[in-house]
């Protein structure tokens, strides 16, 4: 018996409630700029629609990205505090894995996917780059088996690398939703693979660079 509140803000604001592997409610707001304003009402809405009290939520799972920086941490902060307030267990999951799980629901795709012909999941990383990860398989419960990634890369460079490694992947570009993240968490929970790490996957370093301590501004006096 699990009631999972799933939150993913790697793109829009997406919140879902998954009970024993069934999506009971979901709210998806595309607006990428309003995460902070939307997150509270989105959580309240899914609880109301599913008729679940906060204290009944047993697990909170948050998408760790990878994602451009801004919205991601709003979702993580919200997940941390909701879990504290509702006394639920807190977990994190890689958002790309949620896409892989959804794609690999297809029996046709499952039959084709293999280590030699993996599923390639990509998402927009902006600045002309994509996030990418490769999957070779899926467990019976539905946990995808990631064999590479996630990493951030220019699309042309990704294609060049795949060609060098003689990989002709199956491709998925479905958007990540909290519903898919919640179903992923349910599968990971069954497989005992759900992770408590909720740190954000930015994959890029902050824009700021550490100044060189040897480099002095102003005139040297000697």
């Amino acid at each position, binding site marked *: 018996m699990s009631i999972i509140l799933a939150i993913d803000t790697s793109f829009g604001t997406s919140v879902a409630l998954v009970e024993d592997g069934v999506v009971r409610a979901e709210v998806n707001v595309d607006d990428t700029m309003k995460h902070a304003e939307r997150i*509270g009402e989105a959580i309240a809405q899914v609880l109301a629609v599913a008729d679940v009290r906060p204290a009944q939520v047993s697990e909170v799972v948050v998408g760790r990205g990878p994602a451009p920086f801004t919205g991601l941490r709003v979702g993580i902060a919200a997940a941390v505090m909701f879990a504290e307030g509702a006394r639920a267990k807190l977990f994190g999951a890689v958002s790309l894995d949620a896409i892989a799980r959804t794609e690999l629901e297809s029996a046709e795709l499952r039959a084709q996917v293999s280590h030699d012909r993996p599923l390639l999941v990509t998402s927009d990383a902006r600045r002309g780059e994509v996030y990418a990860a490769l999957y070779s398989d899926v467990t019976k419960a539905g946990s995808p088996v990631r064999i590479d990634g996630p990493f951030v890369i220019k699309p042309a460079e990704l294609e060049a690398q795949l060609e060098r490694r003689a990989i002709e992947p199956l491709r998925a570009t479905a958007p990540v939703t909290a519903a898919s993240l919640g179903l992923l968490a349910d599968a990971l929970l069954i497989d005992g693979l759900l992770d408590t790490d909720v740190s954000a996957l930015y994959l890029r370093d902050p824009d700021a660079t550490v100044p060189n301590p040897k480099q002095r501004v102003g005139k040297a006096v000697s």
Partner: protein
Amino acid sequence: MTNTWVILPAVEGDLDEIMALENASFATDAWSVDNMHAELEVAHTAYFVVREDERLIGYGGVSVIPGTGQGDIQTIAIDEFERGRGVGRSLMGALMREAATQGAREMFLEVRADNPSAIGLYRSLGFEQIDSRKRYYMPDGVDALVMRANLEPLRTQDLEPLVLGIETSCDETGIGIVRGNRLLANVISSSMDEHARFGGVVPEIAARAHLEALRPTLHEALNQAGVTLDELDAIAVTNGPGLAGALMVGVGAAKALAVATGKPIYAVNHLVGHVGVDILE
């Protein structure tokens, strides 16, 4: 006689008068002036003096170590000519309320076994003997009774609203807990060390630091205040101005906490928040 005394927080300027009463009250085991001075200054203690017509007629102190939920009466003394008027009861009441406000759920004290009037006063205030210490008061060799009172009734009765505030406006995550206008906890996980390396506040780094700091900061604040999330009456959050990114973390966090706990949420201006912290006692 009427009770025309006032109870005031003790200040350093009270020290000489406190010592005079201390020496008169505890002939054989008075604290030194240095000890008393340190007691007045140390964090987690609260000392009060009783004054009547400018004259100091009593003093007492309580210590509440954050997170323990326990208060300890450090000392209490009433001028021998002013006893029997209810001064001690009134001072004890102030100390018990102070301890409850600072998060104590129970209060402990030791009293000389040969002081029946003090023991009677403490009993009437709800203290019960839980233990004794043989020959505790030296050099007289007098036993001490250890007494305990439940402060829960004081905590739930007539208490001002308990508000938890989250601020992530500029370069730090701050979680404050106030009861009325009294600051119970203020924990700031400053990201200053990170900033120093970058020679200023770098928005992205500030925001990353906020995220990692959120959970430990919340726990520390609740511990310091000696309260649980259930006891909160409201949640407050800074809504600007500030760095947009850092700000959003706090707003998202506060809203989620409000939904999870079912508490109302209020937005406060960052600057007002700062001024507010200053005017808190």
